[in-house]
């Protein structure tokens, strides 16, 4: 079964529901969410590959970081 990070999906859902698309998240976007250090780094650098590996849902990755995708 694929890895699931509730913390990552919670913060990405919160951003997506504000209809925001980001190149990278800010500390303000993440404030109040219990993400790990690795998760924080991936969010603030917009590292979509690492976010996937850490258990972020790919539909949420796509919605929030749409500009990071070539297609």
């Amino acid at each position, binding site marked *: 079964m*694929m890895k*699931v990070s509730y913390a990552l999906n919670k913060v990405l859902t919160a951003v997506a529901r504000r209809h925001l698309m980001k190149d990278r998240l800010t500390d303000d976007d993440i404030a109040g969410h219990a993400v790990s250090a690795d998760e924080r780094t991936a969010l603030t650098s917009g590292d979509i590959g690492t976010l*996937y590996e850490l258990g972020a849902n*790919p*539909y949420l*990755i796509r919605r929030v970081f749409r500009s990071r995708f070539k*297609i």
Partner: protein
Amino acid sequence: MAEVVAAALTSHAPLVTGKPDVSKPEMRDRLYAGFRELQRRLAAARPDLVVMFVNDHLQNFPYSNMPAFCVGLADGYDAPSAGGATLMRLTPRRLDGRPAWGTALLEAGLAGGVIDFAYSYEMDPWDELAVPLSFLMPEATLPIVPVYTNCAAPPLPTMRRCHTMGGFVGSFIRTRPEHERIALVATGGISHWVGTPQTGRINSEWDHWVLDHIARADLEPLLSLTHDEIERDGGNGGQEIRNWMAVLGAVPGWKGEALAYEPVAEWITGCATVWVHP
């Protein structure tokens, strides 16, 4: 007695209508022709109601509350909403729901102990309704009842469980005393990778394998597929063929005639339109 008078399977992707100009024109035209033929056949079947087997893309259900199956009990559904309309290049519109019908289905599932559906009085649909229905119901003349299956946030219900769920819906329809003509439409799939490191990949060989089995009503190899096998060969978007299994479960023995299949790279989706008939 109520009866199933039509069944169809289609893909959904926002770019099908949102960016028609970026695809190869001949592929787009063949797919659009497949949608139009589905629309013609659906209209000829004269349904009173369309039951839509679809999936959320984390628009509605968060990780704090994720149903496997959810019946829509809303009075209406934006297909698309004003926000989605811009991306999908469609006119915003609202389709009527049939909450009483959905409630009857929900209660039958709970009473029979077969399927414990969740339910929702308010949904925010995305392309799963708007894009295919822009072709199949260009005029908003028919009410819909959506049945949402979790195809996007693993762990997911098994393919066989989705087939069983559809079988229950089919039985529910056929035991209703009302004279109703019901159409069943599933949307999603076939192969596509969305938001993963393989975003943009399409596996047309697997797509044809899926379509060939549906054409023969040879479902056992499909129902035996595991989550990981689908993820490997069909991508996370390929998990949406659970919706197709539900419709096929509702009409045992019916066969799927692929009217169009186009692996449209620019829309990152293996796109199909399938008419299902006895």
